[in-house]
């Protein structure tokens, strides 16, 4: 086959003369009088060699060279340069021109350049053939190897044992994390031992039923994403067992394809990272606590300074009332500091829950006696509603008392903050329900909006500015959770709040995770 050559020059004479001589040398010659026309012809004809003038009106030779190389880097481009255009010539070589010839064009020089181009084309073609040959050679050899491996002779020799499927199944089963296989309809088609042990037999159940005790698929399902994209996914999720225990997991998914490359299933691996998450939370809250505590301490120190100043000034002016006033301030500040230190101790030191049978009526009575003086000082009425015959209940009296005092204090503060209502009251209720005891603290103080309510147990955010450390309710929630119980709040701004604490009877608490046990404390 004749090589195709595109000749580009704005001078018609050159195109004519060169065109005839190139056709004589055995090329199929195409010609163009400018860069734009040359590109059009190049695109439709795909010539092997382009011979172009460097200096042309409109698109110059260098630009044409670059455009051609962009479209097909294997095209051989020879540049025609004027006498003394060395810079342009060198530049064209930088853009991967095959060679350049100078005007006036000598037949010898042109033939040398064309030969160079032809050689490069030839070498490239051979290289391509070799590569293709090599590929077919590899296919051929591997087919033979497979044939040998499948032959009865090789199996008998024992040289290449085929993989034993039961071995893989055992590895799958014994993996120390949860592994399941899921189809497109959320059905679990396989699960390893650990998963079956903690979540039950799949038996055609859906993943969300077993892993989350939910009635519908999760909104952000990583396995769905893998079905959709074919890519592995990684995410964090909360799993919940049938017994109600929940824990944080790190989940990976990867597609399982059939022989045609279609994704039929997704493999889901999950590992329990609850301890890690708790540690993260703990560190985050520690950071927040330090910020909140240091701010609270600054406020209290300023208050102490204020008290001392008033005492000093009172003595200087021999003003007994001012000394008294200063002394009250100092007492108040010392009280605030003591409360904060106790809160910090609770936060810093994990305590084991030690349950003893407690007479609930006596317990509640003692509790209210702790808060009653503060309420009386602020003219807040305390209503006790203890259900008759609440009887005895096993709980850690010291800890539950600390939790409830924090909640009661909070209720009192909420009443003090409120300047709208003229009369304030706090109701403290205790009642028994099957398998649990319920404490309720209701106030008609300032109340909370949804944002404040959402953060009160988790964040160290105090809505009490300088008076709060943001620790009290956090500590209360922690104690309640350690008892396997729950703490909830209902509130409306301007109307008040109601905190409800439910503590399950021993043996009735759900799951058994993540309660702290005495063993944990010693670790």
């Amino acid at each position: 086959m004749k090589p195709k050559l595109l000749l580009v020059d704005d001078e018609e004479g050159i195109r004519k003369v060169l065109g005839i001589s190139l056709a004589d040398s055995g090329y199929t010659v195409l010609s163009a009088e400018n860069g734009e026309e040359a590109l059009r012809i190049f695109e439709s004809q795909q010539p092997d060699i382009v011979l172009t003038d460097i200096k042309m009106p409109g698109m110059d030779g260098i630009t044409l060279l670059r455009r051609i190389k962009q479209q097909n880097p294997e095209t051989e481009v020879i540049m025609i340069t004027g006498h003394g255009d060395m810079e342009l010539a060198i530049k064209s070589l930088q853009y991967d021109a095959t060679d350049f010839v100078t005007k006036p064009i000598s037949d010898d020089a042109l033939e040398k350049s064309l030969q160079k181009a032809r050689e490069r084309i030839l070498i490239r073609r051979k290289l391509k053939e070799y590569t293709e040959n090599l590929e077919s050679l590899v296919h051929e050899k591997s087919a033979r190897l497979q044939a040998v491996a499948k032959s009865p002779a090789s199996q008998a020799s024992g040289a290449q044992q085929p993989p034993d499927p039961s071995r893989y199944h055992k590895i799958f089963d014994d993996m120390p994390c949860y592994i399941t296989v899921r189809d497109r309809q959320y059905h679990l088609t396989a699960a390893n031992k650990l998963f079956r042990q903690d979540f039950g037999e799949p038996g055609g159940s859906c993943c969300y039923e077993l892993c989350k005790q939910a009635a519908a698929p999760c909104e952000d399902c990583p396995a769905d994403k893998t079905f959709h994209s074919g890519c592995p996914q990684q995410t964090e999720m909360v799993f919940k067992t049938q017994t109600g225990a929940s824990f944080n997991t790190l989940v990976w998914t990867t597609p399982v394809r059939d022989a045609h490359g279609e994704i039929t299933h997704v493999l889901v691996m999950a590992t329990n990272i609850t301890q890690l998450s708790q540690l993260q939370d703990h560190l985050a809250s520690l950071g927040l606590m330090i910020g909140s505590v240091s701010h609270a301490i600054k406020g209290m120190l300023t208050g102490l300074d204020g008290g001392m100043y008033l005492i000093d000034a009172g003595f200087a002016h021999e003003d007994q009332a001012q000394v008294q006033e200063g002394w009250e301030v100092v007492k108040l500040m010392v009280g605030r500091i003591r409360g904060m230190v106790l809160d910090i101790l609770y936060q810093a030191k994990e305590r084991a829950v030690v349950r003893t049978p407690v007479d609930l009526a006596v317990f509640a009575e003692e509790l209210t006696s702790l808060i009653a003086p503060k309420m009386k000082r602020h003219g807040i009425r305390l209503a006790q509603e203890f259900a008759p015959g609440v009887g005895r209940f096993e709980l850690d009296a010291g800890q539950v008392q600390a939790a409830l005092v924090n909640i009661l204090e909070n209720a009192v503060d909420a009443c003090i903050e409120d300047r709208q209502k003229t009369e304030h009251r706090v109701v403290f209720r205790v009642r028994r329900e099957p398998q649990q005891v319920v404490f309720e603290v209701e106030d008609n103080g300032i109340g909370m909006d949804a944002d404040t309510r959402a953060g009160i147990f988790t964040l160290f955010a105090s809505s009490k500015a300088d008076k709060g450390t943001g620790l009290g309710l956090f500590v209360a929630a922690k104690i309640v959770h350690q008892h396997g119980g729950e703490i909830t709040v209902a509130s409306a701004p301007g109307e008040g709040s109601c905190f409800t604490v439910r503590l399950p009877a021993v043996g009735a608490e759900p799951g058994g995770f993540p309660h702290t046990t005495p063993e944990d404390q010693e670790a």
Partner: protein
Amino acid sequence: MAKKILIIDDDPIIVKYLTAVLEDNGYTTCSATTGAAALEVVKREKPDLITLDLEMPEEWGPHFYRRMTKDPELQDIPVIVISGMAGRHAIKKAVAYLSKPFDPDKLLLTVQRAIGLPD
């Protein structure tokens, strides 16, 4: 007439303390424990200087400051920030920033630099 200083802090004890320090040294004072109340007091009392806490539950100090300075009559009242927060740049135009707990002598010096002696 003695120069008047408005004390804004949500903690009544700190208000009491600042009042005592400033009045003992010849200034007259007025006070507010919320941003909303403070704006009323500023308009009524036209203080020569304001001491302002940053973190207050109902209205954040800088927010109050922005509201106040919208009024051309009030925008030039000098403000000294007295706060436990590290937000030194929360109010750029503040004449001084005192960190809680503050030194009363330093407070008086700062007040004197801003508005001079009481009379």
